[in-house]
């Protein structure tokens, strides 16, 4: 399984962590960020979410994020999985896992990577509320 993926189906956080941990026995700290679909956005009740991505370019950007994280932070491995398509409230959206010898490096790399993902990855979220659909334009 690829460490960096965009997929329709859900993922297992435990399995993704095992995939990342397989890189080295020197891993002592793993930090995972899991983004989930929450029921309220700017005071509006959300019914469901839909994600669209630019196939090819989105995957390429995620791979660039992993490469840059491995280069710029003292981490051993990183995995990134983002879902696309329809996502219900409470479901998983995105997972970023940073594994390092020491926890500080893992925290820094994970936090940087999710910020960078939101900045450069061509993925778009449509929120369905009781009033209708809207493509989300701002960064949260």
């Amino acid at each position: 399984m690829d460490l960096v993926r965009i997929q329709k189906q859900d993922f297992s956080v435990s399995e993704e962590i095992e995939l990342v941990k397989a890189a080295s026995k020197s891993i002592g700290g793993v930090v995972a960020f899991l983004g989930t679909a929450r029921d309220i956005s700017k005071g509006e009740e959300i019914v469901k979410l839909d994600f669209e991505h630019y196939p090819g370019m989105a995957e390429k950007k995620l791979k660039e994020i992993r490469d840059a994280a491995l280069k710029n932070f003292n981490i051993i491995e990183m995995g990134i999985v983002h879902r696309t398509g329809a996502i219900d409230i409470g479901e998983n959206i995105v997972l970023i896992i940073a594994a390092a010898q020491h926890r500080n490096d893992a925290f820094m790399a994970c936090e940087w990577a999710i910020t960078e993902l939101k900045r450069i990855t061509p993925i778009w979220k449509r929120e369905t509320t009781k009033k209708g659909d809207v493509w989300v334009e701002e960064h949260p």
Partner: protein
Amino acid sequence: MVIKVRFFAMLKTKVGKEEANLTVPENISFDKLRDMLKKEFPALAEFIDGKSIMISVNQEFADKNTIIKDGDEVALLPPFSGG
């Protein structure tokens, strides 16, 4: 020469299609391409002018210095909201 133009998310809705082929002059500059896109897809003119969208060429972010070649894939990318 002919390039392919792709639309995503809200821009796809505005234009009413996912992609279009566009005939443009050889050696067209990036700025000229922006102007042509506004003329060809007037529904998107305000977004292109407002600079709220990014343009990619062959799946890389493009800017004034990007050279556009025959067969290139150009995409209009509204603000990202992944994560």
